[in-house]
């Protein structure tokens, strides 16, 4: 039997506005519990919400960046439910008049362009945090503590159409969304800290069927890895059930990363009736063309556009331009390094190679690239060193640990440490002549045509120069001195 997977994602992106959605409290992450609170966000009797317009700006930004239509009349509704992390016992959210509608994002899957449609994006407030004592969950806890710092921090909920066809696509779409959120600088997009979250609606159907299968909602996906893993688990679970002749129950399932399994949280029958209705404490927000156009002008250049430009203007391979635009800062640092190149003949590709090497070093060592203030300057310096054959590109890798996160000029550094390649032909010539003298046997082998021995001789040269011999030059001179070139 051939099955088709149908996935829709609900992404929650926390916005990094200064203040919360409906009060003046700081929206900062990680502060001492219950220090960023006031009568409004703790739902004292008699308080009223006042909308933070910056949140609307952020929502419009994301809407425009994801090709959405921006609704001119916006309304907030109350989603009613009782839980200690929700002090009003309702969440202020948008229900039938969300701010953004009908957009899409393109992702690349196995070198093929896939369009993922976005149903809607809406604004809502986050809940507080419960810390259970003596257990992981509330039912087993001796008592639970409530931290309302996060309560009413602004969120955007981004709902996709059920058009995602695999767990990998889901992850790629999620990564693309994070990339855009970070380019727009409206959120941190950090899944581990919870500033980016995602629930997946998963169902399967026989290939060719039009009717959708019964879906389950998978929650608690706290990393991109979890997204992919949990969805795959759920697909396998559903296929097993259907192939055994069973039926899928509509339910919410909780993903447990430690055990790599999902367990049922609640079935459809136990689902809440949220009794949505328009919040009478807030007036509708009217977004006119002027507002939208003002935001449109503030939009930064987005990754897809930059990629195209890098390919067209700099003749970079697509793979390079995709990797360079993975984060905005890298694209900017690359471009600045190239624009300020120290040699006219430095090519974009040379700069790109160095930039990617530089960035990879941060990635593989779990360093924060966003805080690397001298990246562009150092990438430029390193490119110059490579371009002038002052160091080999492998040398770059070995000096990166010493210079990143410092303001070292790589050119000065190489000079200070005496790392420059020996490219002085006179000096190199006498070293190579010594090596030939000391190794007459191998020298004869090469002369008689056993070219593999060149490697051995090069090793000897490198040993004598402590690795600083310019390998291309040394190779050429060796051959010349042996009279075989």
């Amino acid at each position, binding site marked *: 039997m051939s099955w088709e997977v149908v996935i829709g994602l609900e992404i929650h992106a926390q916005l990094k506005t200064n203040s919360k959605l409906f009060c003046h409290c700081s929206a900062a992450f990680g502060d001492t519990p219950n220090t960023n609170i006031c009568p409004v966000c703790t739902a004292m*009797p008699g308080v009223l919400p*006042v909308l933070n317009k910056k949140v609307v700006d952020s929502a419009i930004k994301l809407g425009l960046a994801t090709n959405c239509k921006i609704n001119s009349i916006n309304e907030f509704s109350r989603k009613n439910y009782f839980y200690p992390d929700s002090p009003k016992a309702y969440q202020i959210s948008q229900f039938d008049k969300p701010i953004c509608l009908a957009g899409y994002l393109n992702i690349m899957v196995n070198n093929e362009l896939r369009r993922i449609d976005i149903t809607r994006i809406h604004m809502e407030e986050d809940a507080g945090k419960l810390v259970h004592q003596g257990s992981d969950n509330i039912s087993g806890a001796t008592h639970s503590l409530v931290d309302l710092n996060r309560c009413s921090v602004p969120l955007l909920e981004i709902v996709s159409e059920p058009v995602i066809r695999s767990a990998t696509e889901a992850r790629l779409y999620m990564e693309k969304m994070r990339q855009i959120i970070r380019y727009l600088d409206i959120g941190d997009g950090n899944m581990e800290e919870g500033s980016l979250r995602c629930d997946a609606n998963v169902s399967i159907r026989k290939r060719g069927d039009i009717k959708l299968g019964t879906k389950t909602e998978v929650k608690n996906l706290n990393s991109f890895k979890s997204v992919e893993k949990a969805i795959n688990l759920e697909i396998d679970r559903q296929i097993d059930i259907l192939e055994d002749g069973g039926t899928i129950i509509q339910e919410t399932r909780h993903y447990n990363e430690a055990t790599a399994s999902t367990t049922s949280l609640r079935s459809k029958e136990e689902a809440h009736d949220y*009794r949505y209705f328009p919040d009478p404490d807030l007036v509708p927000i009217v977004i006119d063309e002027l507002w939208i156009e003002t935001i449109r002008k503030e939009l930064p250049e987005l990754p897809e556009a930059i990629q195209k430009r890098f390919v067209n203007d700099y003749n970079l391979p697509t793979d390079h331009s995709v990797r360079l635009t993975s984060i905005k800062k890298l694209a900017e640092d690359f471009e600045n390094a190239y624009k300020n190149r120290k040699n006219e003949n430095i090519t974009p590709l040379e700069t790109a190679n160095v930039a990617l090497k530089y960035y990879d070093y941060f990635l593989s060592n779990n360093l924060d690239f966003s805080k690397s203030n001298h990246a562009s300057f150092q990438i430029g310096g390193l490119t110059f060193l490579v371009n002038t054959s002052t160091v080999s590109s492998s040398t770059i890798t070995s000096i990166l640990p010493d210079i990143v996160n410092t303001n070292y000029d790589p050119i000065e550094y190489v000079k200070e440490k005496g790392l420059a390649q020996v490219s002085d032909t006179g000096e190199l010539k006498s070293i190579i002549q010594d090596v030939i003298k000391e190794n007459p046997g191998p020298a004869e082998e090469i002369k008689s045509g056993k070219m593999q021995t060149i490697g051995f001789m090069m090793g000897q040269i490198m040993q004598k120069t402590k690795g600083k011999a310019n390998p291309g030059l040394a190779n050429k001179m060796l051959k010349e001195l042996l009279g075989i070139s």
Partner: protein
Amino acid sequence: MIHLNAHELFNKIKNKEVSALELTNAFITHSKKTNAVLNSYNLITEEIAINTANRVDKKIATGEKLEIFEGVPIAIKDNICIEDIETTCSSKILEGFKPPYNATIIEKLNAMNMPIIGKTNMDEFAMGSSTETSFYGVSKNPWDISTVPGGSSGGSAVAVASGQAPLSIGSDTGGSIRQPASFCGIVGVKPTYGRISRYGLMAFASSLDQIGPFSKTVEDSAHLLNILCGYDFRDSTSQNVKAEDFTRDLNRSIKGIKVAIPKELYNSSLSKEVKDYYDQLINKLSNEGIIFEEIELPSLKYALSTYYIIAPAEASSNLSRYDGVRYGYRSENANSLIEMMTKSRSEGFGDEVKRRILIGNYVLSSGYYDAYYKKAQQVRTLIKEDYKKAFETYDVILSPTTPTPAFKPGEKTANPLEMYLNDIMTIPVNLAGLPAISIPCGMVNNLPMGLQLTGNVFEESKLLGISNQLEKILCFKLNNSFIEGVL
């Protein structure tokens, strides 16, 4: 002295005939003495009243000019937050609760140095028309202590009618200022929705709630409105309209004004006795050159049912925050989170509040939302349009404030619908967000009756002007010696 109106008292302070402290003490003494009978206060706030009075006296001593109503005491309904002062909504669920902040109007009254005498009794969470749903027991109507003072702002009305305070503040969601004003023979104003900030008013039904004043005269209310009104950024539904002097039309002639009497309010629900009384009253006013015309506001017949969908719906959500987690009453008999919330609410709320929460949850639940809540909002639009059309022709709309004078406790509690019917005259005004006033117009069965005048949105000045002239014509006086006798 305690039976003087606010304006007269203010002049006495200004002219140094009495100090603000002496005045405040007189009202506190009288309030303490009579509260045992009237049960109009949940709390007398002697300390803050005296502090404020002292501030005024200091100002006088340094020769500073006083602004109107500085030093004049005022009583506050117990659903308006005063920082660190117990504010309970007359509910067990908020027993002992002290808000960490001041309502906007409290800031305004403090800035105007008006001594706050106490927090007045009310129907629990303003749900009721008699103060009978108060956790602290019913307040008594000073005209006849065997009758109710009306509600929900009953305590505030009693305070002014009985000389406990010359002014008081109430809130009006479906008539909760105008109906008790009518029952107690005083003036009560519900301003246009959005005129006075709701920040710090413990919400009952957010789209209907509006704070307003009680006073002995229309002029006093006009002055108090000048202090209370104004845009507040903390209330998104507050209206950013230009400040105006609400006393500006008080002396304007009302000869030739056109007054509409809606059939829907005038004929259906009145007893013959009450109807005859108002017929004769209108005759009298016609002789003063006022033009009365009967009109139809057809959608008004749906007002009561519309109100009893919208108000409970909003209330069910507004009152969800009382869950025993952060403040207020928490049940001791709970073994789990769900039990803690359920029992705290079951034990903390009274029957009427529970009834309305249930109605509200029902009309908002999926599957019923369209048939009830959505439909009710559509009717509400029709009601607004009916009024709007009427105001194209008429200056004000007139009706009795209540279908009957004050009733006895228990008379209407057995059948909630009967209690709801008592608000039939006042409810449409809240649905339309209009300003309205109740002024005393005479007595039926030895109990005061009120005349309700409704104005167009933001036409409070005109409404108060007309009311002030009618007040002069009607010559209604609080029978102070009679009330003293009762007490």
